[in-house]
């Protein structure tokens, strides 16, 4: 598979196909980050579009030396999410999370027993509600670490805070989320 940095170079030379490949490769990650943060599929869709528009316009400013393309993409997404969060703070008080839930990923689902699938879907929805009750700082940290699978150093680059702060936020976010989910009646399994 062609490296992201090469695709970026091709994009800068005006190759639409390279841009299409970049979009196809990263849309899911960006959409998931937006969806987990906002808890709303429609908002997440709009925000994802906004993210890629911004990326498209500022692609020439991307330098591979400063970090991997996905990290840069995540930074842009996160900054937009924070802007969006501040913009919509007042409206959100009355918002419901039941809005529109996107379908679970189809991949591997056929191999899964139906009850397990339902379980995963249930967890996904409960998790969404639990995340919504976390503060934005803790929420973004937990999402980046446990749902997006980023390394601590990458999260540090995205959030622009010291490593100690990153670790502390992730830790507190996990404990808080576990408490909320338990309160919501979810039982820990292992």
């Amino acid at each position, binding site marked *: 598979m062609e490296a992201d940095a090469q695709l970026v170079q091709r994009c800068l030379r005006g190759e639409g196909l390279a*841009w299409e490949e970049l979009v196809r490769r990263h849309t899911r990650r960006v959409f998931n980050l937006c969806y987990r943060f906002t808890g709303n599929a429609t908002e997440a869709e709009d925000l994802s579009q906004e993210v890629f528009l911004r990326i498209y316009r500022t692609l020439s400013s991307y330098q591979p030396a400063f970090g991997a393309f996905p990290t840069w993409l995540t930074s842009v997404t996160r900054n937009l999410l924070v802007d969006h969060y501040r913009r919509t703070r007042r409206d959100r008080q009355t918002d419901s999370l039941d809005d529109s839930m996107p379908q679970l990923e189809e991949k591997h689902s056929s191999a899964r027993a139906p009850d397990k699938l339902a379980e995963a879907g249930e967890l996904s929805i409960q998790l969404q509600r639990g995340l919504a009750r976390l503060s934005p700082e803790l929420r973004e940290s937990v999402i980046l670490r446990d749902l997006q699978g980023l390394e601590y150093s990458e999260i540090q680059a995205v959030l622009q805070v010291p490593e100690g702060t990153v670790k502390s936020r992730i830790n507190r976010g996990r404990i808080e989320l576990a408490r909320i989910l338990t309160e919501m009646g979810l039982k820990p399994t292992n």
Partner: protein
Amino acid sequence: MDWNCTLTEERLSDYLEGKLSPAEAAAFSAHMSSCANCTETVAQVSSFVNQMHKLEMVGEPPQLIAKILDATLGPRTQKESWRQWFGWISVVWQPRFAMGLAAAVASVVIVSYAAGLTPAKLKKADLSPSNVLRSANRQAHLTYARGAKFVNDLRVVYEIQSKLQPEPETMPVSDPAPAPQEEHNSSPPNSTPQQKSQSSPPASRTRVSSGPMFALLLTESVADNLAENSINISTRSAR
């Protein structure tokens, strides 16, 4: 090591990710075995973190990628219209049509070569519509004139033949018609051998006296070449 509930919470992620030193890990475990609250918290966090790791990403809405590409690269209906314009290529590009097309192109090339059009001699000025029309017109006239002259030449040949052979039953031409002979006193060079073959009857008398006839034809073909050259020169200077 003195371990308490606050420390357990603070270092929980380090514990889950195996980042505690052996001494810290031992103290952590020792505290858990004596604290039910911490044991429960660790079990909950561990379980939910594991579940989150196993959770697959939700699928993006199906139209999202297309929307993003439209918003960035512009509406891609251009691609569709391109397909509309050039869609017929795939239809034509089938063996049957391709072979037919190749045969048609080949025959056009052969005909144009036969008509005296060689791509190597083709100039830019030759491609302008007025020149194409003019040369086509000239070719048509030349072809017609050659055909007409050929028929007249044949007539003359038969006439001469009939005069040389006085047998009455082999007289095919009754009307001598000398006028067209004077009008079209030009003959293509390739018509000579045909006439020669037609003008060689087995009779020995004819063969001996056919000399003047060849002389006549020879002068005709020379005159024809001269005329053609003068036409060429006049059309070149017209361009």
